């Protein structure tokens, strides 16, 4: 299943959330966090975040990820003349 790139709502374990708050002090005060998942691999989620002047990519290891919430059912359709 191809889940990236996309902004997803991610629920992390307490340990994962605490670690992420060290890296991203401005995270909203919610257990479910919206992050842009640029890529996934065997290590975990590579998320792209904005810091003051530039973008950074952070790794969230799978062991800290409890849930990833993605919009699944959206179907966008148009008609086209052949």
């Amino acid at each position, binding site marked *: *299943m*191809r*889940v*990236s*790139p*996309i*902004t997803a*709502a991610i629920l992390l374990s307490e340990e994962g959330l605490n670690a992420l708050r060290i890296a991203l002090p401005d995270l*909203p005060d*919610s*257990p*479910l*966090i*919206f992050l*842009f998942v*640029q890529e996934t691999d065997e290590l975990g989620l590579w998320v*792209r975040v*904005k810091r003051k002047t530039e*973008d950074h990519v952070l790794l969230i290891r799978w062991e800290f990820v409890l849930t990833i919430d*993605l*919009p*699944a*059912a*959206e*179907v*966008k*359709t*148009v*008609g*086209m*003349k*052949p």
Partner: protein
Amino acid sequence: MQISVEGRRSSVGDWQAVSEIPADQLKPLTPEQAAVVAELKISAEDYARSILEGERASEALLEKTQRFARFLNQRFASRVGGVQIDSVALETWAGKFRVAIRGKVNTVFRINEDLVDDLFEGGSKEADERISRVIDLVVGERVV
């Protein structure tokens, strides 16, 4: 011909563009979306941005699907008569295009999205040949 995108995927470009929009210029949430925000205790601003990002990305994916449909239409027309494309759908989760054809041949087949990207983004001759081979196989197997 029906063109559709099933599921959602975005891009770094869409994410960057949406993240630079000032919070007060974001589209207000619908009552249903606001209810989701309250229920899940999530950031309303982040949720609004993710919705906008998804809308932009869907447009881009729809354009890509349309472009591939036009390409397929030309390819079918030049290889086999009496076949019309009924629909082309991009299944974002599977990374495949699902194509339904009718006429002399009635069937549904899939083509890897990566192959189409190789063709459109890389101009790959091999991808072009492989897509043509898929078409030949589909038509060859179904026409008696």
